[in-house]
C-alpha cells in the first residue's frame, strides 16, 4: 500500500502555517481582539447594540420580564379542521410522489407534508433513473416555496412604477397583442410535454410564432453534433455503470452536467466494491484545467488549458480513429503521454468504455461521437434510443431573436420560468435595450429577476410544489409533478396562462390529464384503463411509455473547426457551481451556505488561482497572492470585477477559473449582491455557440482582503500533523504535542491520526492487511482503558450505527442540505461563517493526497460519531449530553447551559454552538442574527417558518447542538413497528442524509442486528473507525477510499 505521507487540506497545511495550527487547535476560534476592534463595522454595531450600561439595563429588565412573562401562561388556541380531509391525520406525515423540475434540472422526489404543508424532499426510490438519490438543489427547493421574496400577484410596470392588476384585464391585453402579431416565447429548457402542446395551440392564434429555447450553461454543441450524426438533437443516454473506463473532457457530470443524480448513481455502482475485489471498478480520467467537482472524484486528472480541449479531443480521435488533422502540441507534455496511453486503454476496453465532453463546440462533439462509434460504445455505454431531453437550448436562436427584437418586428415576448436573458446572456445589456422595441413583454416567473423587472407585465407562476405539471426528461420516461399545497399567493401556472390566451381555457390538471390520455396512454401496454394508468403514475411518480425511435442516420463525423489553442499566457475558465447553478438557485440560502465541495467557500464566487509547491515548504503563488480571500481585480475585455482568490491545488499553471451564476442584482434577500456576474464575459464561436473560457484575462496584484471571506476548510479540523523539533523533525500529531511532553510513549497518542484511509484498487489486499494490523494495534491500545466494559448494556435492543463508503461518496453536499432541512438547522450568513459559526450538523471534509500538481481528493462526511465512550459526555457539568441505551449520544437542549466543554472535548469537532439567536426565540434583538441586513432573523418570518420540521426542537441561543442520527426518525420507525406488532426490519429507519445520498454511500441501521446492512458493512475488511486509537468507540464506520489509478497514466507520482 502506498500510504502517502502527504495528506493535506490546504496550502497553509502543507506549509505548516503557524496561524493555522494555532487556529485549528482551538475549537472556538476568535479573531484577535485588535482585528476585531479595527473592524469598523463591528465597532459601529457594538455601539448601536449593547454597551455595558445597556447590558445592565437588559439584565434588570430580563429578570423582571421573565418573572412577569412566566406568571401568566398565554391562552393557546387549537383549531381543528372544519371538514378534515381523509388523507390527513394531524401529526402524521403524508407523502406524495412528484418531480423536482427547474429548467433542465430534474429529480424524481417524494414530498413529505405535515398538516398539508411540504416540509422535506426525499428521493423517489421507485424511479429507475435515480433510484432514490437527490441533489442538494432538489433538497433545498422546499425552502423556495416559502421564500418571502416571491411574486405575490400579477402586476404591470411602467415608468418605474409597479401596479397590481387583475388577471382578466391583463389577459385581455395579452390576448389582443398575440392575436395576429409576431409572438416569441423565450424559455430555458422546458421538459413539459403539456406546455409544449399548449405553446403549439397558442401559436395558432398568433400570426407568426416561435419558441426560443436557450440554456445559460449550454449543451448546444452536443445537440448539434447528435443532430448531424443521428438526426436527433438530444443528449445520449449514458450508462456509466457499464463503462470500465470513462474519459471525460470537462463535463461535470457528477455535479452539474445534464443529469448528475442519475449519472452519480450509475457511476457509484462501479465504485463501491465488495471486500478487496477491485476488478469491477471503473476508471475515470478527467481532462481539465481547474479542479472541477467531477475532476475531484476522478482517478486521474490530465491538465490541459481550456483552449486546448479541442486539440486534445482531436488528438485522442486521431489516436483511436485515425485520420483528421491533430497538428499542434499541448502545453502539458504529460497530457500528450496520457492521450497515447488512454487511446490504448480505450481500444482495449472497446464497447465497455465511454468518452464524453462538456464542450459546447459542435466539431469537438462530432469527434467524441466518432470516437465512441469507433470504439463500438453506442448501444453499450451510451445510446440514442432513449436520449436525454434535459438540455434543449440552441445558442444561436437567442441571437436571431435579439435581431428580430432590435428590428422591432416582435410584438409580444413571453419570457417563461427562469429564463433571465438580461442576466444570463453575454448580450444581456443589448437584450435589455432591445426589450424596449417589443410592444409587450411578459414575464411568467416565480421570483423577481433582472429580466422580470424590465418586463411590462409580470404574471407570477406557482412553485413546483403548488402546481400540476409533467416532465419528459428522457426518451419514453414521463414523470408527473403533483401539487402538495394550495398555492400560497395569487399565482397561475404557465400552462393555464398559455391555454387562456390560446382560447382554450382549462385547468392545468385537466389539460395534463387529457394530454396524457391522448398522447401517452395509447403508447403503453401495462394498464388497460386510463384511470389505472393515471393512478399508478400518480403513485409511482412516473410512467414509461414506448417511444418511436428515429433510425439514426449515422453520418461520419469530423470537421476541422475545433477550437484552436490560444497560446496566451493566461486563460480563465467558467464553470457552473454546485450550489447556485446557472444563477436560478442564487436566492436559496441553504444552497448559498452549502460549501462548494472543492473550494469549500460559501456565499461567494472566488477566483481559483494556481500554485506550485517544491515538495518542502516553498510555494510559488500566482501573483504572489499568498492568502485565500485576498481581493484582486479581474479584467476581461471591457469588464472589471473584484474577486477573492482561493489557491487551488490541481489548477493548471497559467489558468484561472471562476463560477458563473453569481452577481444577481434583482433577486430575493439571499441572492442579490452575492459574488460577481461573468456571463457578460462569455464569447461565442463562429456558429454562435457559447464559449465557457476567456483567453486574455488580466489579474491585478492584491488590492485588499475580504474580511468576511468565508471558507470552511480550516474550520473544525481534526488531527493536524506537524514536524516535531525535538525528534529530528519527525512528523507527529501536533494536537497531541502538549500531551507528549508530559511523558513519552504513552498509549497511542503519537500515532498519526487515523482520519481517513485510502488505497488503490491494485493494492487493496495489501492495504486491507495493513488496516487489519493497524486496527488490531488500536484494539490493543484500547484494552488499556479506564472505562468499564458496557457491552452487556449496549448488547440488548438496538445499537444504532452508520457506515459511510468513502469510495462512493462524491461530496455533492445533498446530505448536508437534507440534514439542514430535516433538523431545522439555521443558516447564519457569510459574516458568521467567516467567524467559524456555521451551524451545519454534518460537514463534508475535503482532503488532498498524492501528487501536489494533480492531487486526489477524499470527501469525508463528518457528523457526530455517537461514541460509546464519548469524551463530550463526561465533561458536561449539567449532564445535558449523555448516552442512551441504544448507543445514541443524546443532547438535551433545555438542560444545556452553554459551557461548550463538550465541543472542546470532541475529537471530531462536530458540535455546534448557537452563538446568536437565529430564530428570534429570545427576548433581545441584539442577540439576533440578520444575515441579510434585515431587522429580523431569517427564520423569524412566519412564512419561512413553515419549512420547519415540527418534530424537531428549534434551538435557541446559548446551547450546543449536533447530529442526533435523526432520532425523530428512529423514534417514528420504532413506534410504527411497535404499533404494527412486528420486529423492526433493517431499512425501516433511514436518516435524512441517507435518503438524500445519490450514490447510496451512507447506510444507517442497527449494529446489534448481525444481518443488517450496516453491521455487514462494518465487518468489511475496508472498514475503519476514525480516530479509533482514542478509544472513543464510535458507532460510525468508514469504508476506505479506493481509487483505480493506472500506473501508466501520469506516472509522475511514483
Amino acid at each position, binding site marked *: 500500500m502506498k500510504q502517502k505521507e502527504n495528506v493535506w487540506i490546504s496550502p497553509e497545511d502543507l506549509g505548516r502555517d503557524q496561524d493555522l495550527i494555532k487556529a485549528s487547535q482551538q475549537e472556538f476560534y476568535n479573531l484577535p481582539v485588535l482585528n476585531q476592534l479595527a473592524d469598523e463595522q463591528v465597532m459601529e454595531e457594538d455601539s448601536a447594540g449593547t454597551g455595558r450600561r445597556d447590558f445592565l439595563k437588559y439584565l434588570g429588565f430580563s429578570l423582571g420580564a421573565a418573572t412577569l412573562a*412566566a*406568571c401568566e*401562561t398565554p*391562552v*393557546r*388556541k*387549537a*383549531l*381543528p*379542521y*372544519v*371538514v*378534515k380531509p381523509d388523507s390527513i*391525520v*394531524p*401529526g*402524521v406525515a403524508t407523502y406524495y410522489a412528484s418531480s423536482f423540475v427547474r429548467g433542465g434540472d430534474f429529480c424524481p422526489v417524494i414530498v413529505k407534508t405535515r398538516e398539508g404543508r411540504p416540509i422535506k424532499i426525499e428521493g423517489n426510490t421507485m424511479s429507475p433513473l435515480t433510484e432514490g438519490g437527490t441533489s442538494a438543489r432538489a433538497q433545498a427547493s422546499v425552502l423556495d416555496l416559502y421564500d418571502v421574496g416571491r411574486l405575490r400577484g400579477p402586476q404591470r410596470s411602467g415608468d418605474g412604477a409597479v401596479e397590481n392588476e387583475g388577471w382578466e384585464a391583463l389577459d385581455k391585453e395579452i390576448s389582443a397583442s398575440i392575436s395576429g402579431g409576431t409572438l416569441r416565447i423565450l424559455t430555458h429548457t422546458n421538459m413539459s410535454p403539456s406546455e409544449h402542446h399548449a405553446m403549439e395551440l397558442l401559436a395558432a392564434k398568433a400570426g407568426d410564432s416561435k419558441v426560443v429555447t436557450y440554456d445559460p450553461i449550454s449543451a448546444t454543441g452536443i445537440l448539434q453534433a447528435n443532430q448531424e450524426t443521428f438526426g436527433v438533437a438530444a443528449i445520449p443516454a449514458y450508462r456509466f455503470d457499464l463503462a470500465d473506463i470513462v474519459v471525460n473532457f470537462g463535463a461535470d457530470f457528477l455535479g452539474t452536467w445534464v443529469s448528475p443524480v442519475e449519472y452519480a448513481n450509475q457511476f457509484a455502482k462501479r465504485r463501491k466494491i465488495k471486500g478487496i475485489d477491485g476488478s469491477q471498478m471503473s476508471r475515470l480520467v478527467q481532462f481539465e484545467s481547474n479542479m472541477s467537482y467531477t475532476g475531484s472524484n476522478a482517478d486521474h486528472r490530465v491538465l490541459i488549458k481550456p483552449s486546448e480541449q479541442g486539440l486534445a479531443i482531436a488528438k485522442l480521435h486521431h489516436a483511436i480513429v485515425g485520420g483528421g488533422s491533430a497538428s499542434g502540441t499541448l502545453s502539458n507534455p504529460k497530457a500528450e503521454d496520457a492521450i497515447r496511453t488512454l487511446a490504448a486503454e480505450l481500444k482495449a476496453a472497446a464497447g465497455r468504455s465511454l468518452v464524453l465532453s462538456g464542450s459546447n463546440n459542435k466539431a469537438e462533439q462530432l469527434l467524441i461521437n466518432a470516437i465512441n462509434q469507433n470504439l463500438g460504445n453506442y448501444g453499450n455505454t451510451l445510446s440514442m434510443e432513449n436520449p436525454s431531453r434535459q438540455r434543449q437550448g440552441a445558442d444561436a436562436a437567442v441571437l436571431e431573436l435579439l435581431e428580430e427584437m432590435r428590428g422591432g418586428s416582435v410584438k409580444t415576448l413571453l419570457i417563461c420560468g427562469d429564463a433571465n436573458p438580461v442576466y444570463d446572456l453575454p448580450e444581456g445589456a443589448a437584450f435589455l435595450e432591445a426589450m424596449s422595441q417589443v410592444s409587450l413583454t411578459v414575464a411568467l416567473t416565480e421570483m423577481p429577476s433582472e429580466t422580470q423587472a424590465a418586463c411590462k407585465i409580470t404574471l407570477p407562476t406557482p412553485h413546483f410544489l403548488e402546481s400540476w405539471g409533467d416532465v419528459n426528461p428522457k426518451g419514453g420516461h414521463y414523470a408527473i409533478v403533483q401539487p402538495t399545497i394550495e398555492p400560497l399567493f395569487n399565482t397561475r401556472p404557465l400552462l393555464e396562462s398559455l391555454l387562456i390566451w390560446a382560447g382554450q381555457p382549462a385547468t392545468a390538471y385537466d389539460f395534463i390529464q387529457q394530454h396524457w390520455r391522448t398522447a401517452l396512454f395509447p403508447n403503453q401496454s401495462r394498464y388497460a384503463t386510463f384511470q389505472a394508468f393515471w393512478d399508478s403514475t400518480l403513485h409511482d411518480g412516473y410512467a414509461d411509455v414506448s417511444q418511436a425511435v428515429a433510425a439514426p442516420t449515422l453520418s461520419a463525423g469530423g470537421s476541422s473547426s475545433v477550437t484552436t489553442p490560444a497560446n496566451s499566457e493566461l486563460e480563465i475558465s467558467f464553470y457552473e457551481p454546485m450550489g447556485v447553478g446557472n444563477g436560478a438557485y442564487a436566492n436559496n440560502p441553504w444552497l448559498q451556505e452549502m460549501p462548494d465541495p472543492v473550494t469549500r467557500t460559501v456565499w461567494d464566487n472566488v477566483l481559483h488561482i494556481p500554485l506550485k509547491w517544491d515538495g518542502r515548504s516553498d510555494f510559488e503563488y500566482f501573483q504572489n497572492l499568498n492568502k485565500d480571500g485576498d481581493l484582486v481585480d479581474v479584467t476581461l475585455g471591457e469588464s472589471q470585477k473584484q474577486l477573492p482568490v482561493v489557491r487551488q491545488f490541481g489548477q493548471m499553471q497559467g489558468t484561472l477559473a471562476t463560477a458563473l451564476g453569481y452577481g444577481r442584482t434583482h433577486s430575493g434577500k439571499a441572492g442579490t449582491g452575492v459574488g460577481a456576474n461573468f456571463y457578460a464575459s462569455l464569447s461565442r464561436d463562429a456558429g454562435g455557440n457559447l464559449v465557457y473560457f476567456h483567453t486574455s484575462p488580466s489579474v491585478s496584484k492584491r488590492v485588499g482582503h475580504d474580511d468576511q471571506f468565508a471558507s470552511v476548510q480550516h474550520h473544525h479540523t481534526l488531527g493536524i500533523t506537524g514536524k516535531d523539533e525535538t525528534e529530528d523533525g519527525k512528523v507527529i500529531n501536533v494536537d497531541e504535542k502538549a500531551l507528549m511532553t508530559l511523558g513519552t510513549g504513552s498509549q497511542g497518542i503519537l500515532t498519526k491520526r487515523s482520519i481517513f484511509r485510502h488505497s488503490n484498487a491494485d493494492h487493496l489486499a495489501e492495504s486491507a492487511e495493513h488496516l487489519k494490523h493497524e486496527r488490531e494495534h488500536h484494539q490493543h491500545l484500547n484494552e488499556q482503558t479506564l472505562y468499564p466494559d458496557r457491552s452487556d448494556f449496549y*448488547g*440488548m*435492543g*438496538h445499537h444504532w450505527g452508520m457506515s459511510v463508503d468513502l469510495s462512493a461518496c462524491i461530496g455533492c453536499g445533498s446530505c448536508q442540505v437534507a440534514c439542514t432541512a430535516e433538523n431545522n438547522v439555521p443558516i447564519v450568513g457569510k459574516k458568521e461563517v467567516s467567524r467559524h459559526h456555521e451551524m451545519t450538523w454534518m460537514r463534508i471534509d475535503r482532503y488532498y493526497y498524492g501528487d501536489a500538481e494533480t492531487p486526489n481528493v477524499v470527501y469525508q462526511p463528518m457528523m457526530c460519531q455517537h461514541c460509546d465512550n464519548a469524551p463530550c459526555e463526561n465533561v458536561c457539568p449539567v449532564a445535558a449530553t*449523555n448516552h*442512551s*441505551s*441504544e448507543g*445514541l449520544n*443524546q*443532547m*438535551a*437542549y*433545555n*438542560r444545556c447551559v452553554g459551557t461548550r466543554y463538550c465541543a472542546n472535548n470532541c475529537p471530531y469537532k462536530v458540535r455546534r454552538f448557537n452563538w446568536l439567536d437565529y430564530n428570534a426565540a429570545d427576548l433581545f434583538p441584539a442577540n439576533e442574527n440578520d444575515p441579510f441586513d434585515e431587522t429580523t432573523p431569517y427564520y423569524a418570518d412566519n412564512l419561512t417558518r413553515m419549512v420547519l420540521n415540527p*418534530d*424537531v*426542537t*428549534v434551538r435557541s441561543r446559548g446551547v450546543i447542538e449536533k447530529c*442526533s442520527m435523526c*432520532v*425523530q426518525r428512529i*423514534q417514528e420507525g*420504532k*413506534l410504527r*413497528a*411497535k*404499533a404494527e*406488532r*412486528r*420486529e*423492526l426490519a433493517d431499512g425501516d429507519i433511514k436518516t435524512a442524509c441517507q435518503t438524500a445520498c445519490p450514490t447510496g454511500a451512507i447506510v444507517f441501521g*442497527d449494529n*446489534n*442486528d448481525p444481518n443488517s446492512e450496516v453491521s455487514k458493512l462494518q465487518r468489511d475488511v475496508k472498514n475503519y473507525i476514525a480516530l479509533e486509537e482514542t478509544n472513543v468507540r464510535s458507532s460510525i464506520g468508514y469504508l476506505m477510499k479506493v481509487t483505480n489509478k493506472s500506473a501508466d497514466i501520469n506516472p509522475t507520482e511514483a
Partner: protein
Amino acid sequence: MIFNSFIIRFSQVILAFLVAFSLMAQDATPQVIEGDPIVSESAPVPIGGGGPVIADADAGKTLFRNNCGTCHNKNMVAAMTGPALGGVQERWSDYPIEDLYSWIKNSTALIESGHPRAVQVYNDNNRALMQAFPNLSDKDVTDILAYVDGVYTGTYGAVAAAGAGVASAGGETPSNKSYFYIVIGFLAVLAIVLTKVLSNLRFLADREAGIATKGPRSVWSILTSKGAISLLLFALVILGGFVTVNNAIGLNRQQDYQPEQPIAFSHETHAGLHKIDCQYCHDGARRSKHSVIPATNTCMNCHKAVKVGSKHGTAEITKIFAASGFNPNTGQDKYIENYDSLSEDEIKAIYTTWIANNYVTENGKLDRRGERIIDEQWEGIKSSLTSPTKPRIQGPIEWVRIHNLPDHAYFNHAQHVTVGQVECQTCHGPVEEMEVVQQYSPLSMGWCINCHRETEVKFADNPYYTSYAKYHEELKDGSRTGVTVEEIGGLECQKCHY
C-alpha cells in the same frame, strides 16, 4: 453557663422547627367535603306498603341518565325524541299513581290495555312507542320521578349548585392552618419568655458572682439582638429560597386549568351519559402524536340528527352548524353550498330563524323572552366563532387548548394509547364526569418520569421487543416479573427531547 447556652441552643432549635412546621402547613392537602345526598320532599307516596321510602334524587339522576336521557330532554321542559317529562305527575294525577309506574315500566302493555291517558300520550307523540324498562324497581321509579320533579321545579338544580359551591369552596374551609399559627405564636411567646427568664437568671448569676452588668435584658433587646436577627434572616432566606424554587419549578404548569371554551361542550354528556368512545372523536390518539380535537364534521355526524341540546337547547349546537355551514331549518337539513361567500347578515338570518322556530316549538309562540333568547344566542354564536384574528363566522372553531406541553417536549399519543394500551383516564382523569374539562395531571417531567418508572411495558406479546433477549430469558426463568418502561430506556433524554 453551659446550661444557659444549652437552653439558648435548644430554643433556637425549637424556633427552627417552628419555621419548618409552618412551611409544611402550607402544603397541607385541602380536603373536599362531599355534598350530602339530596333528599326530595316532594317524593310521591310510596306504594307497596312497608316503611317510608325516601326518594333519592341523586340516584334518580343516574337512573335518568342511563335509561331516559337518550330520549327525554334533561331540562324536563323541552321535547326531544320523547316528550318533556316535567310535571308528569300532575298530568297523571287523575289516575292512581300505580298507573304512572306501570306506564314507565312498560308503556306498551298499558296502551294495549286501553288506559285512556296512555292512549292519549301515545297519540300525542306520533304513535311512537317507548321502550319497556322491566328492570326498574318501584324505588327506582320513585327516584327518577323525584329527580324529574326536582329539575322541573328548580329545587334539584339549586340544591346541587349550592352543593357544588360548597364542594368547590371546600378547599379552604377545613384548613387547619390557623391552629398552626396559634401554636407558632404560642411557641414564639414561649421562646421569648424563656429567653427573658434566661437573661434574668444570667443577670442574677452574674450579680452573685460579682460581675457588673447593665441589668437584665429587656424583651426588646432580646428581639433586636444579633442572634435573633440573624436567625430571622437565616429563616427568611431558607424560606424564600424554598418558596421560590418550589414555585418557579411549577411556573407554566397548569394543573386544574379549566378554561371556558367557545362552545359549552360537555364531556359529561357525551362521554359519560352517552358513552361515546373517547377515540370516536379524538381519532388521532391511536395513530398520531396528537389526540386531535375533532373536526367540526365529526360533530355533525351525530348533530345532523340531534339538533337541540338537552341542557342548552339551540344555544350551543347552533354554533357547530354556523361553523360548518349546516342549515338545520325544517325542510333544509343540508350543508349550505356557497356558505363561504355568505355575508354575516345572511348567516344571521338562517340561524336566528332556526332558533326562533325551535323556541316556538317549545313554547308555543315567540314572546319577548323568545326574542331576547334569539338575540342572546346569536350574540353567543358570533362571539364564540369570531376573534380579532378570525373576523368571519365561517371556518374552524377556536377551541382553547387545555393541555400545553412545552415545545421541547415530544409526546406521542399513539405510543401510549396503541402500544402502551394506557387508558385515557390515567392521564386525563375522569373526563366522562367533567362538565367542563380541566387538566387533571400536572404534566410535569417528574410526573412523566415517575409513571415510566412504575409502568410495565406490554412486553411479552409484542414481537417488537424480541431484540431484548436478556429480559425475555429472565422473564422465562422467573427472575423477573416484568419490564418497566425505564428498563427499556424510557427515562433517557432523547425519548422525549429532540
